[in-house]
């Protein structure tokens, strides 16, 4: 599928799961896999790093 931001081709591994982050190799935008049924994948904008993120 294509990057919703810059239209570059996104390479989504077959074993990728819902919740994983996909980064566009061209524009660097991050997307979260919100739905995955077979080869049908839906993406949403990934959250940006928050003040409280970490260990």
């Amino acid at each position, binding site marked *: 599928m294509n990057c919703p931001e810059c239209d570059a081709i996104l390479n989504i591994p077959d074993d990728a*799961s*819902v*919740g*994983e*982050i996909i980064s566009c190799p061209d524009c660097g935008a991050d997307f*979260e896999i919100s739905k995955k049924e077979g080869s049908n994948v839906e993406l949403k904008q*990934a*959250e940006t790093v*928050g*003040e*409280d*993120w*970490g*260990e």
Partner: protein
Amino acid sequence: MSKVCIVFDRLRTEEKMLQKEAYNLGHDTLMLDAKITQVNTDSKKEDFDLGDVVLERCVSYFRGLHFTASLEFMDIPVLNKFEVANICGNKMFMTLLLKKNNIPTPKTYFSFSSESAAENLDKVGFPLVIKPVIGSWGRGVMPLKDKDAMEAVFEIRDITDSPHDRIYYLQELIQRPPRDIRVITAGDEPIAAMYRKSSGGFKTNIALGADPEICEITKEMEDMAVKASKAMGGGILGIDMMEDDERGLVVHEVNNTVEFKGLARVAQRNIPKEMIEFALKHVRK
């Protein structure tokens, strides 16, 4: 066969490793995205099929903490417990508890306004290290080496003025080799450790490019890690220590949702496997 629920908000390598090891041990897993889960005051344990134990693994501290509160409200066993997560997520609470339990920790000064923090620095002298009470990966951690640096940092804090910016946590700068030690514990037992070598600056966070190197757990490290884990309330923790040139080991941080993918590649023991085994043992007690 048991069932382990892994709560996440961003599926990282660690969560997938935990899922894989649970599967390899013959257990079912459920991956639950906290961002799309709804709970209310009438929610009951039976409304959710979360298995025997929940591992809370959110990257957002506040999301994970509040999610844990809702799980404990329904009497669903979760690791780490709310109280442990609450303390470890706040550097001031954690430092106070370490000291209260006589665990060697760097001397730390607390002030509750920039004026008061500046006054304290005038008394104590430079350098001190300023750390945000909430946050991770070394962000916002800065050595204040002189008055100019202090004024710049304090001015920015006064402008942003988020609730946590009003809490000034200033710590002595430890004289040590350019590395620290991370010990991962499960149920008060150290399972693996690494040196985190600075990549140039004074910070040693892996997230900032520090070099991980396997570390043999000495008796002193083990004792210190066990004490720190017990002081926090146990569970699955990442205990950070520095080698003070004069005092020996000092514990400067205990992490609640510990990241381990780097260490897992070189550790002798299987970290995610040990975590799953501990979690299930913990609920069977």
